[in-house]
């Protein structure tokens, strides 16, 4: 069970307020993750059903964060004492594969994917197992399509938003994906992930996996929008 030290959302928000303040004062990079989930009815009306900080950074993200400071490697597994990352197929890989050095927003790399592409970006599932620090893949993926149990994944390139907020100050990257249910039946979405595809485009790393507190039932003809925001605090 993760986040046993948190008593309430208010407690969590107070801690983030303090962390932000200290981050700016001490000059320690802080990347806050946010999750927002909306249901979209047949008329396009949105209902925000989840709006909170993510509580689900994986070992991949922790390893990538620390690795960037020193680029040192140790071990061969995705476990304590080794700082490798884990590809969604279960292979432990050199953390340098996480990085990239070109366009990360064009739909081919980074967190942004094109329509129907499930190898990176935002992906949803029906799995109900609680989040674990060692998660590296979605539990039960909802496939792309219009068949039974499938949903149509939209393009993420045009749906992203980023920018500088001087009043923070922080730089944010908001990534959204709409999944439409044209399967003929209702589908309950219980989990979402954010996948990163890096230096070697064969490797994909899950940095966030969120199990929803209550499943979001998406009826035939309706859609679900999952929005992840990564926000870097600046001094």
């Amino acid at each position, binding site marked *: 069970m993760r986040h046993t030290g948190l008593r309430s959302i208010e407690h969590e928000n107070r801690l983030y307020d303090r962390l932000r303040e200290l981050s700016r004062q001490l000059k320690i990079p802080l990347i806050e993750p946010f999750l927002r989930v909306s249901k979209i009815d047949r008329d396009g009306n949105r209902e925000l059903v989840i709006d909170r900080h993510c509580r689900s950074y994986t070992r991949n993200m922790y390893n990538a964060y*620390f690795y960037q400071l020193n680029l040192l490697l140790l071990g061969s597994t995705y476990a304590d004492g080794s700082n490798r990352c884990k590809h969604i197929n279960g292979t432990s890989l050199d953390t340098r594969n996480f990085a990239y050095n070109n366009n990360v927003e064009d739909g081919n790399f980074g967190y942004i994917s094109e329509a129907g592409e499930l190898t990176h970006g935002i992906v949803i599932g029906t799995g109900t197992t609680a989040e674990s620090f060692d998660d590296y893949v979605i539990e039960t993926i909802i496939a792309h399509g219009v068949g039974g149990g499938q949903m149509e994944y939209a393009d993420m390139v045009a749906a992203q938003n980023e920018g500088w907020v001087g009043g923070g100050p922080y730089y944010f990257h908001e990534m959204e994906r709409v999944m439409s249910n044209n399967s003929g039946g209702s589908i309950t979405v219980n989990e979402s992930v954010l996948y990163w595809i890096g230096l070697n485009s064969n490797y994909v790393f899950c940095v966030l996996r969120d199990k929803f507190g209550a499943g979001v039932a998406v009826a035939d003809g309706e859609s679900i929008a999952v929005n992840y925001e990564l926000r870097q605090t600046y001094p």
Partner: protein
Amino acid sequence: MLNDLQYEKAVEEYMEIAAILEVPAARGFLGVDVVQPHRMPETEQDIDNLVQAGIFDQPKIHYFAPCRSWTRNAYNLYTYTLCGVNATGIGTFGDGHINTKDQMDVIRGSPSTCEYVEEVYAAYGVDYTWGIRIGTGSTGESFEDTKMDARIPHGDGAGEMRYWADRDGLLSWNGGTRKWTAKLQRYFTNHSGGSISVAEIALFGYFDKGFACMVTRDVLGSPVAVAEHELIRVNITQESVAFPS
């Protein structure tokens, strides 16, 4: 401005909160040791032999303080690599712009590293364009720093010191605290004929194998005097937040 003790206390609080919220974080320490060997090293092996013989067990000068000096270059590296934000161009380096500025004051594009330590933070041989570097400048640190105040050049002339290759970094895991520790290290020797006062220490990354960008710069609380024929060791130690279990 916080003194070292206040800074340490605040960092402890930061790390505790980050551990509760389960967000990645890291802190840094700076260590400087000065010794006077009986015979000056002429090779990397000579330095290794001196270290193995315990010359640093009782240094003439020992300085230890928190690192508190991540620069905009380092932050932008994170925004690019971990938040997935493209570089915003090379027109402006400052708020709202994701890029890097190298030591020649040239604004560069993507702040990527994506290579091994020996290609980014650890310079080969006597190369002093990246890796750990030292200087005599004492101007206070700024988030906007992109170069040293007054770097000490490599050489044996007046005001110069020999730069030895950055050592292989050391990464270790503590299962009890659930924290990673990474140590970057470099040695310098003074053959200049006079004493040199080291007042600032910086870490340069050789980003994208093309340009050296400063990611940290620390001004020492009290400068460290390195006399002729003395050996100085600089450690930059990074410690992660406790990993979730």
